[in-house]
């Protein structure tokens, strides 16, 4: 597998011939999931992991997070083995499910997770309050996590992932179960993280996640890295363009369609673009207040 460096800066993540898997049964037999993945991700970039179910995306993230041991090959996070606590102090991880202690309140769970991350107690409470407000859970901060919906748990997961200002953020299906305002919160948090130079790796099945957030994509198939590179380059199809226009009437659309055909092209699809869900949620409550 060849390696492509995205920038000339020292990489945030480096995988060389990574193979890992699970041990199953009493005899702890090996079941390999990743077979020799070599990849490097620059600081400040956002890598999207794509691939069908069972392709090894979550295993790759778990290995980067130091949760899972590599069977072969080398993994370096910010130049260090993620099995070392020093490396893990600089990263954060959002697991695919939300296996947080269900009996704890959101604020108590953040206390626990922050304490394990080594965030000083005084600072921790302030950060927890701020993040819970940010992800829209400040009113439910005293409620046990077991009373949370899937989307609320995802929001809580985002709060814990950004609790310690990590330099590497690993997110497994961050938008699964999130509502539209939740998408917006994620977008803001990712924007801030990248602005301070953090490297983000996210696994997702949603094209919108990948197009919106990721500057690079890595395609995993059957535990092998099939392809990776800049998002536009990986998804580009020669001669195909997607436009989103505003302020046009139906007649204008017909004119554009005719012009495209005259130029030898083809309009593959066109439909009126409606409001986004986020815009819909932000509509004023009474008709009089509508613009």
């Amino acid at each position: 597998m060849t390696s492509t460096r995205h920038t000339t800066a020292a990489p945030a993540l480096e995988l060389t011939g990574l193979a890992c898997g699970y041990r199953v049964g009493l005899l702890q037999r090996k079941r390999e999931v990743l077979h020799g993945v070599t990849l490097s991700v620059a600081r400040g970039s956002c890598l999207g992991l794509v691939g069908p179910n069972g392709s090894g995306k979550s295993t790759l993230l778990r290995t980067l997070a130091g949760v899972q041991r590599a069977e072969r090959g080398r993994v370096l996070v910010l130049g260090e083995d993620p099995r070392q606590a020093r490396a893990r102090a600089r990263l954060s991880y959002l697991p695919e499910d939300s296996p947080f202690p269900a009996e704890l309140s959101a604020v108590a769970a953040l206390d626990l997770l922050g304490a394990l991350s080594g965030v000083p107690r005084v600072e921790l409470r302030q950060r927890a309050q701020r993040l819970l407000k940010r992800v829209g859970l400040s009113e439910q901060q005293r409620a046990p996590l077991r009373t949370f919906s899937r989307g609320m748990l995802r929001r809580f997961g985002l709060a814990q992932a950004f609790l310690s200002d990590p330099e590497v953020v690993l997110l497994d299906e961050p938008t699964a179960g999130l509502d539209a305002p939740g998408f917006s919160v994620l977008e803001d948090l990712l924007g801030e993280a990248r602005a301070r130079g953090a490297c983000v790796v996210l696994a997702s099945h949603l094209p919108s996640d990948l197009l919106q957030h990721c500057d690079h994509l890595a395609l995993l198939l059957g535990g092998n890295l099939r392809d990776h590179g800049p998002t536009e380059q990986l998804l580009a199809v020669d001669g195909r363009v997607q436009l989103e226009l505003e302020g046009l009437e139906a007649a204008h659309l017909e004119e554009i369609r005719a012009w495209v055909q005259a130029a030898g092209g083809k309009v593959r699809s066109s439909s009126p673009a409606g409001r986004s869900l986020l815009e819909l949620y932000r509509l004023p409550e009474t008709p009089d207040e509508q613009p």
Partner: protein
Amino acid sequence: MSNPRDASRERYGELFSLWVRRSLDPAWTLPLLGLLAVLSLADWTPTALRASGMATPSLRRGLEREALWSVALLLLTVWTAWHGARIMWRWREGEWSWIASRPATAFRVWIATWAGASAGLGLLLVAMAVVVEVGTGLGAPTVRLADSQPVDDTRLEPGQSLDIPWIGKPPMTGSLRVFLRSSPGGDPTTDVLVEAQRGELVRQAKLRLDGRRPVEVEVPPDTPGPLVVTITNTGGGALALDGGQPLDWWKPAGSEWRGSCSVVWRALIGLSALLGLAMGFGGRMGAVSAAGLAAACLLVATTDPVVSWIPFADLPGVLTILGEGRLPMGAHLLLPLVSVAVAVGSWWTAGKVQ
């Protein structure tokens, strides 16, 4: 600059608290305490003993204490094995992902988890002791087993006597107890004289023996010289010294409720070791198998009461002493260390949790 020990306490303290809380899950602890409270309303004195008129208030309280603790510990032991095995199951089912991705040392996480779960069990045991003692009514001053000396099975024909010199630190107060039985096969009844002699001072107990029973004789007051216990068969039938029970020295001690304290301490050490063992097995196999294997190890431990430094080994004997309205000897000093060693050793048993 913060003290590293304070930083470590801050880092693992919350995890410790989480497991204290999980060990005290009200869905399990409240029914258990309620059951104990209900059982404490029953009369645990056997009908035959009540009819014989030998059931003193102290004995009745002792029997109730023994019964309540036996039921409580049986349930708590099964639950602890399951609880320990489920810790690893929880870790495998996802909790390990948020634990292991933090800059925490895996071994310290293990110890904080074990210590927290054990502390929760300790609090539960204290709550159970309160229910047991409220149910039995605390009790009166009693005696504590101070020391024991093994004796051999010996048959004494009519007129024969046996001297047993006390070895070790000589008793100064209290009483000595030995188990005797009138020998079957011959005359089922005989008379016995048990004397405790030190220097010129002698204390004695005479009684007619019909079957097997303990015979107690007062310790002569503090005088120089070795202490010798003499057993004489003064009757017409044969007499046997029961070597299955040692010669015990009982001395006045605190109130009967201290017996529950003794059970709490021993049970806490035993349950902590069991918890560690179940956690260790849980890293390798399913929760049910791990709990079953840990419980099997516990059964093996309780079959050899002689090795008192093994957690749980002397607990059945302690409960029997409690049943007599008396207090057991202090627990072996090595017990807590053995429990910690089991928990630490189980870390390696658990292997790779993935």
